[in-house]
């Protein structure tokens, strides 16, 4: 069973096709990088998978089930069981690090003790022990990045979507976090869809690459 599948997906903004008849399959546990120049439709692909957009034509499947088809959202974002790291991280500024992670777990209606355990475990994995009660604004850029990754992973999602998560970091930190993402993938085995325009990140993260140009897959 594929983790994520696009079947002839089209998405238009006004007169421009951001995604033009795109089809692909991503298997469970794969690390797929969606790569291409600015405006090629990379982020639209992620937003279609997440459920923030519906395809005008075609079908999107998550976990083998159709979640959106022909202009309609069939399964809303919260029921797709996905995690996402946004380009601007989107950490909730009024919640502490632990509360940011807990929001993701509360929807699963787990007992508070289990939630606390999972949060502590995830913070340890991303080397943020001791920062559970700190607000995001107090953290460094790299620490904020780790909180965003931890929040995406803590609910043990079917797949994790990352939208150019390292684009605002310096080379050294980017290199370190690339390594950390690969470590976490090795430990947890999640499906990863990673959007970037950086060839360096593409080479390091991707076990497979989908190259996009003008909303279509570019065949090398």
């Amino acid at each position, binding site marked *: 069973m594929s983790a994520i599948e696009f079947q002839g997906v089209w998405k238009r903004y006004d007169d421009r096709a951001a995604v033009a008849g795109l089809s692909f399959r991503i298997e469970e546990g794969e690390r797929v990088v969606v790569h291409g120049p600015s405006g090629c439709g990379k982020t639209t692909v992620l937003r279609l998978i997440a459920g923030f957009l519906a395809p005008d034509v075609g079908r999107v499947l998550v976990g083998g089930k159709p979640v959106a088809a022909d202009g309609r959202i069939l399964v*809303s974002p919260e029921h797709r069981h996905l995690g996402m790291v946004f380009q601007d991280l989107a950490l909730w500024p009024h919640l502490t690090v632990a509360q940011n992670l807990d929001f993701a777990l509360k929807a699963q209606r787990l007992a508070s003790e289990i939630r606390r355990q999972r949060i502590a475990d995830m913070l340890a994995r991303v080397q943020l022990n001791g920062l559970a009660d700190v607000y995001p604004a107090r953290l460094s850029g790299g620490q904020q990045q780790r909180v965003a990754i931890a929040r995406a992973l803590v609910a043990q999602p079917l797949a994790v979507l990352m939208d150019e998560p390292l684009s605002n970091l310096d080379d050294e930190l980017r290199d370190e976090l690339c390594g950390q993402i690969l470590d976490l993938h090795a430990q947890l085995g999640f499906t990863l869809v990673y959007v970037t325009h950086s060839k360096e990140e593409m080479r390091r993260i991707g076990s497979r690459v989908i190259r996009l140009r003008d909303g279509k897959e570019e065949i090398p």
Partner: protein
Amino acid sequence: MGRLLISRQITLWTAVAVLIIAGVLPLCLVLATSLADVGNYTSTLGNARIWRIFRTSLVLTVLTTVLAGFAGIPLGLLFARTDLPMRRVLTFALSMPLLFPPYILAVGWYEVLGRGGLLAQWAGSPVGEVTSRWLFGLPGAVLVLTTAFLPVVLLLTMTYVNAVNPTLEQAARLFSGWPAVIRSITIPLAAPGVLLSLVLVFLLTMGEFGAPAFLRVTVFPVATFTELTAFYNFGAATAAALPLVAVALLGLTMEQRVLRGKSFQFGWDGGREPSLLPLGRIRTPLCLLVTLAVLLVVALPLGALVFRGLSLAALGEAWDRAGGSAARSLGYSAVSATALAGLGFFLAYVIHRRAVVCWRWVDAAMLFLFTLPGTVIGIGLIALWNRRSTNWIYATPAILVIGYVAQYAVIGTRIILAGFAQTSSAVEEAAEVAGAGWFRRVFGILVPILGPSITMSWVVTFLFCLRDVSLPLLLAPPGYDTLTARTMTLMANGSAELIAALCLLSMSLTAVPLIVYGAARRMGSKAT
């Protein structure tokens, strides 16, 4: 370089001095004068009647704030974050009362619920007797002021909800449905703005004069006004105003605590449209319900006014008796709005660039003056300017313009400040590097860039000046009154048709700045 710096500092300090002379100095003077005779305070504040009035004011204010929040916050969320049909039309309709002085709504409700009102005509005079008693009392004042100030909560809730970075909501949508996202993310992030709106409604209600005076509810501003105009007891009026000053200070403190440093969530680039909560099957019934509410609380009283006042005879009489006042209202408001836009530009510069050491005090002083009831500012200005040596100001409409500048400086400044916040300071620095002096930078670069904000500031302050009641009642010299002051005076003995026609005249004047703004926008878009 030194000369350029000096001309900049002189201009900015002049702007600060204008604010001090217009608003801060009169208040300090009145406070110092009244403190000279402590008897004023002991006799006024020891008077049980004063505290009864204060209790009435407080009950009216709390009930109005609670009801405006109870209706305005859900409506703001509904209009800002759902796919409710006709959101723009409904927002505009519900915001209309903010354009007029609240006494117009009171007159409108009188035409519906009064003894000779629509309801009495339809259901019989015994019903009219009951509803009239209800209207001319605390419940009626709460109804009128809630309708009048609900737009403050509605618009600020919408503004702050729309300012929440939509990515924060989308991040939450991956884990939870819309209700939990709105409860846990949207509302907490917009809460400072919502709280600010409630503080504003509280202060506006506390300082409101016209509607309670018409509905014969004795609240603090009415009592202060009476002390001054009926008994000319200056010391007692000042002492009676003291609780209002205390409440305004409380409001200012709350605003500073609530909003300071809480703008973290509003730093998004606005490049992505927020997602809207689909209402599904309840979309149409909810739209019908909101439309019905709009018809009931806005269209009904205003429609009743039109029904009563829209006759050639009534409009003719209104024009005869108040045409001059209407023209003066437009003139004073235009002059004041121009002064406020100019002053607002330089004060916004002071605050945005932290260009003078006391910039924080300047900001706080403006807000404090806005939160004070007009009667208090009026008393202060009378104390400062009612002297033989300054009669050349006090005996002319200039005193009213000064009053408007003191009361509404914060509005003009904050609108332009929002424009400054969206403009990179590099545009001025580039002109500076190119050798442009201070005035060339201001008038050649900043003013054209901030044109839309300055125009908006002019329009909004114009509307506030136009709808003001208490300042013209206290400050306009004989023969120089405004339409609002003339209407309040004629209410004592004018016919219902005349009063309704005067209200219609007042409402039609508000169209003027909107037409000016529309024309300015059209010219601006043609030019670009």
